[in-house]
C-alpha cells in the first residue's frame, strides 16, 4: 500500500525568527501581522503563557510586556526563503514533494523504499536532515491517506514521546489515534462544522469515521463524505480537492514534462496567480504579498540545478486576478534564467486579511474605513487594467506607501547588507 507523508514545520515563523538569534531560545516570542495588527504566530512558550492566535496586538500588549516576550513583525521574505530551503531539502529525500503551504508539504511515497528503508526510518531521516540543513524542526505524519497523515502529524506535534514522527501502519494504532482526536482536529472539519457534528453525538475522529460516508455526504457535503472515506484509509483527496490552508494561498504544480521556454513558463506562473486569486476570492480574503518560485528537477537528477524565488508586496491588499498576476509576472521576469529545464513553478499569496474584517491596527493611521463591497467594486471598475486612477485620499497622493513593521527582523538570507554578523 502506498503511503503519504505530511511534513509540517513546527512553529515555523517563530523558528525562522530564532534561526540566527540563539539568544531568543526559550524566550517567548510572537510574530505580528501586517501593520503589526494582530498575532499570527507564537512560540510554544508564548502559547503556554496564553497568547491567543489572531488576537489584536493591543489586547495582549500588557501580557507581552509582563513576560518580556520578543515581538516581531512578519518577515515574509525570510519565511519564504527558509520555506524554499525546507522544500528543496525534502526534494532531496523523496521522489515527489507537493508543497501544500509555506510550512507544509505532502510526500507521496511508494510502498517499498529504496535500500529496504522503512517508512519510519525515512520519516526520522527527514526530521534530521531538515533540522541539520535548515535549522527548522519538522514533524512528520505518515498514513495511507492525506487526512490520516494530517492527524498523524497533529499527534506527532502534540505527544513528546513520538519525537516528532507518527507512522500509522497498524489499524489498531490508527483506531487509538482517531479515538484520541477531537472531531474538530480532522482536516476539513474545522470550527464551523464541528458543533453540528457534536450535536449528532460525533465528538471524536473515530466516531466520525464510523458514520456512513454516503449518508453524511447527503446531509452535509461531498467534502465530508470524502473525509470519512479518508479516515477509513480510502484515499480520495488530492492537491485539487484538499481543503486549503488558512494563512496563505498557494498554487503550484510539477510539470508533466520539463519546460525550457520563457513564454510557456511565464504563462504557467500567470495562470497559477489567477488560480490563486480565485481561491482567495472564494475564501473572501485579500492578499498583500506575492511570492513566485521556479525550479528545475530535484538534486539527485543529472540536470543542472536552478531554484529561486522572489517576493514583493502589492500596494493594496487585493484578490484581483489582474493585480496579482501582474505582480507575479514581474517577479517571474526577475527570476528567469535561460538554459534550464524547469520542473516546477508556483505562486504563493501571503499576508492575508479578510474582506469583511480588514484588520487595521489600533495605531493604523491609514484607511481605517471598513470595507464596503459596493464601493470596492466601483473602485475596481474604475481602476480596471491596473491604472489606479482612483484611490483613497488617506493613502496619500505621493504613493510612497509603507506598511507599519516596527519590529521587523533583518532580511538575513536575502540581502547582502543584512546577513547575520558573526564575531
Amino acid at each position, binding site marked *: 500500500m502506498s503511503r503519504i507523508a505530511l511534513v509540517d514545520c513546527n512553529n515555523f515563523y517563530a523558528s525562522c525568527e530564532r534561526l540566527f538569534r540563539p539568544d531568543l531560545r526559550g524566550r517567548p516570542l510572537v510574530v505580528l501581522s501586517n501593520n503589526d495588527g494582530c498575532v499570527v504566530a507564537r512560540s510554544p512558550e508564548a502559547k503556554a503563557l496564553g497568547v491567543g492566535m489572531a488576537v489584536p496586538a493591543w489586547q495582549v500588549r500588557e501580557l507581552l510586556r509582563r513576560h518580556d516576550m520578543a515581538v516581531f513583525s512578519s518577515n515574509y521574505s525570510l519565511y519564504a*526563503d527558509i520555506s524554499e530551503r525546507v522544500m528543496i531539502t525534502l526534494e532531496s529525500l523523496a521522489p515527489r514533494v507537493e508543497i501544500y503551504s509555506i510550512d507544509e508539504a505532502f510526500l507521496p511515497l511508494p510502498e517499498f523504499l529504496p535500500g529496504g528503508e522503512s517508512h519510519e526510518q525515512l520519516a526520522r531521516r527527514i526530521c534530521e536532515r531538515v533540522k541539520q540543513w535548515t535549522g527548522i524542526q519538522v514533524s512528520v505524519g505518515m498514513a495511507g491517506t492525506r487526512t490520516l497523515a494530517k492527524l498523524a502529524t497533529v499527534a506527532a506535534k502534540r505527544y513528546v514521546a513520538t519525537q516528532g514522527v507518527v507512522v500509522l501502519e497498524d489499524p489498531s494504532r490508527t483506531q487509538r489515534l482517531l479515538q484520541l482526536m477531537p472531531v474538530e482536529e480532522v482536516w476539513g472539519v474545522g470550527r464551523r462544522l464541528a458543533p453540528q457534528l457534536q450535536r449528532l453525538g460525533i465528538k471524536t475522529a473515530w466516531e466520525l469515521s464510523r458514520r456512513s460516508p454516503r449518508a453524511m455526504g447527503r446531509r452535509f457535503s461531498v467534502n465530508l463524505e470524502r473525509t470519512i472515506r479518508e479516515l477509513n484509509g480510502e484515499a480520495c483527496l488530492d492537491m485539487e480537492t484538499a481543503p486549503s490552508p488558512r494563512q496563505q494561498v498557494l498554487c503550484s504544480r510539477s510539470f508533466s514534462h520539463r519546460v525550457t521556454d520563457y513564454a510557456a513558463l511565464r504563462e504557467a506562473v500567470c495562470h497559477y496567480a489567477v488560480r490563486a486569486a480565485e481561491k482567495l476570492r472564494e475564501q473572501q480574503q485579500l492578499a498583500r504579498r506575492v511570492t513566485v518560485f521556479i525550479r528545475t528537477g530535484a538534486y539527485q537528477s543529472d540536470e*543542472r540545478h536552478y531554484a529561486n524565488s522572489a517576493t514583493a508586496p502589492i500596494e493594496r491588499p487585493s484578490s484581483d486576478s489582474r493585480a496579482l498576476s501582474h505582480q507575479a509576472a514581474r517577479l517571474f521576469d526577475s527570476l528567469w534564467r535561460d538554459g534550464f529545464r524547469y520542473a516546477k513553478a508556483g505562486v504563493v499569496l501571503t499576508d492575508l486579511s479578510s474582506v469583511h474584517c480588514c484588520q487595521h491596527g489600533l495605531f493604523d493611521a491609514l484607511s481605517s474605513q471598513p470595507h464596503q463591497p459596493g464601493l470596492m467594486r466601483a473602485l475596481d471598475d474604475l481602476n480596471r487594467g491596473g491604472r489606479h486612477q482612483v484611490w483613497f485620499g488617506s493613502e496619500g497622493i505621493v504613493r510612497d506607501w509603507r506598511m507599519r513593521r516596527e519590529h521587523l527582523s533583518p532580511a538575513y538570507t536575502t540581502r547582502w547588507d543584512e*546577513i*547575520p*554578523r558573526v564575531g
Partner: protein
Amino acid sequence: MAVELFLPPQNSKGPALPLFLEPVPAGFPSPAQDYVEKTLDLNELCIQHPAATFFVRAQGESMTEAGIYPDDVLVVDRSLTARHGDIVIAVWHGELTVKKLETRPQPRLVAMNKTFPVIEVPEGVELEIFGVVTTVVHRVRQP
C-alpha cells in the same frame, strides 16, 4: 515598488555532464548542448548544498590568522558535520561566533589570533554548531 530578490545560492549542481553522456535523439540538438560551454559560476565553486548554505559577515579580529577579516562574507554549509580543525559557526552564550573547532583532547573553540582567549567547552555542556565555514569572500579592493 521594492522588489525583494532572493539571493539563495544557485546553480551548484557541480560540473556539467560531458555531452557524450547524454543520449542525443537524431535530428534534434540535445538541450544539454547549451550547458556544456557556459560562463563559470562562482556559486558552483563555493556552494555544494544550496538549501543548506547561509552567508554571514565576519566581525572583529579573532580569526585573522585563518584569513578571516572584518566584513568578510563567510559561506556556511549546515549540511556538513563539523570535524576537528574545521572553522565553524558555533553557538556560544546565546551568540553566533566563528572559531576553529577542536574536538580533541577536549572540545574547545580556538580563536585564530593569539591575543584572543581559547574557549574551553566544560564537560557536560553541549556545544552547538550552526554550520561549517567552507569559503571566505574577502574583498581586496576597497570601494
